[in-house]
């Protein structure tokens, strides 16, 4: 299936990935080749398989909301991994203007 360069550029933008012109061309070629391979899923005859789930035996698992841990029990350890923090907060750039 043909995929336009603009479409691939849009996909990369949505994925928050920046591609150079050369990378974009290579990505377009790779995506086209992979889509040509997986295209068989559209052609294969499947009997009454519409709306089917692959795992009909699967059920939702619930648990009681119990044994809460103390507030801040993990805060410091987790925040230590953040590239930038201010006390109990992760700092990011301004979102609303």
């Amino acid at each position: 299936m043909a995929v336009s360069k603009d479409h691939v550029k849009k996909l990369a933008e949505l994925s928050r990935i920046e591609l150079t012109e050369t990378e974009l061309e290579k990505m377009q070629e790779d995506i086209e080749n992979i889509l040509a391979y997986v295209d068989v899923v559209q052609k294969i005859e499947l009997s009454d398989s519409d709306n089917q789930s692959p795992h009909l035996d699967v059920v939702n698992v619930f648990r009681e909301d119990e044994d809460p841990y103390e507030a801040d029990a993990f805060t410091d350890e987790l925040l230590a991994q953040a590239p930038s923090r201010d006390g109990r907060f992760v700092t990011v750039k301004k979102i609303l203007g």
Partner: protein
Amino acid sequence: MDELTTYSAGELARGYREKKFSAVEVTEAYLKKIDKENSALNIYLEAFSDAVASAKKADELFQTSPESTHPLTGVPIATKDNILIKGKTASAASKILENHTATYDATVVERLKGANAVFLGRTNMDEFAMGSSTENSAFGPTKHPIDPTRSPGGSSGGSAASVAAHLAPIALGTDTGGSVRQPASICGVYGFKPTYGGISRYGLVAMGSSLDQLGVLARKVDDIETVFDTVRGLDKNDSTTLPARPAPNTHKRIGVPRSFVKDAQPDAVAEFERALNTMASQGYDIVDIDLPTAPHALAAYYIIMPAEVSTNLARYDGMRYGLHVEGESLLQDYTLSRTKGFGAETRRRVVLGTHVLSSGYADAYYKRAIALRAALVKEFDAVFENVSFVATPTAPGPAFKLGEKLDPLSLYLEDIFTVSANLTGDPALSVPYGTVEKDGVLLPVGIQFMSPKNSEKALFAIARDLMNENKN
């Protein structure tokens, strides 16, 4: 000293109890061997210097309260770099997590710590477990221990190579489309993927959550079973884990989808047939089966997996953990961090996943792939009403040269025989049965057995029959 690194986990457990050697001696022998051999093979990304302290604790336990020891007490284990061990780096072989320290233990790690096993180091892998050659690691490829010009397979290539090269008696890996079984086949060791939900995924770096399973690599079936029995079962932190259920009844009938198997390389097929002959002489009944959907499983997989990858990897935003690259706006922070942090294959799968899930394409790709997955599940369920096992070669051939499969699709085809078990959720085991010659070098090839959900014990039994290993 090197003799200590030849023992299986079971032999180590006996040796410790018979006081032939100590866990400290064994651990030091491994660390010494890793120090000597790792730079040439790039199997470990890091060996843990505190392994000796854990081994010392195990030795003390043998002295003070031998009744509280476990078969894995003092046994060194290598772990793939996408399995979290609190306080250790867990990078998933990605630049984006290069400096990420795990803030908690994966459930499997917690259970192995409870057994006083010794964590030896973290092994190299394809970035985020995406690949079949370990060449997608941000930290350079791992080399095959038998022929360093070849790939050990992947994505658990470091784990498979560590066991094959006697740099660990057992290793943990993860298997999303064959990432434990294919490198196991290529390196000549056992590679096991349990039933989906058989082992907790809590604390593994997620790739395709409906497909991912933790797996085990070892040189003996007993060792695989011991690790499985130690880490399996319900976990409140992973609601997809299954309770232990009675295993289904099994008999000695093996189904072989021959029209599918013929896609493997001729010498690999010959070794596969030789394995079947051995099984027949052991009283197994070999029957032809038809799995018309199985050859298309890989196509469905390359839609479902990237779809799940693109959503799972959205969490890497450079804000909460991992690499952060400073830009001029919030959007630029995201984009620069991800662009600098992700390698080529990771980017490819994120972009592909974004495509197959996007409006106007989701019906044509994602929904059709899910329907094909449902058809595959039905097909396997029907087959398992008549046979207890389905056998195929594990991989299409033996180890290939590093750099030989640069085209993404040719590498994807390495998983043609293994992805079905991930899509259906059935357990599977690669058994190191055969060898084929390439350029004058004898290279291992494995045979894969799949079986119905929760019938792992039957897989261990059939492997013992094929390899003449006795259960201890």
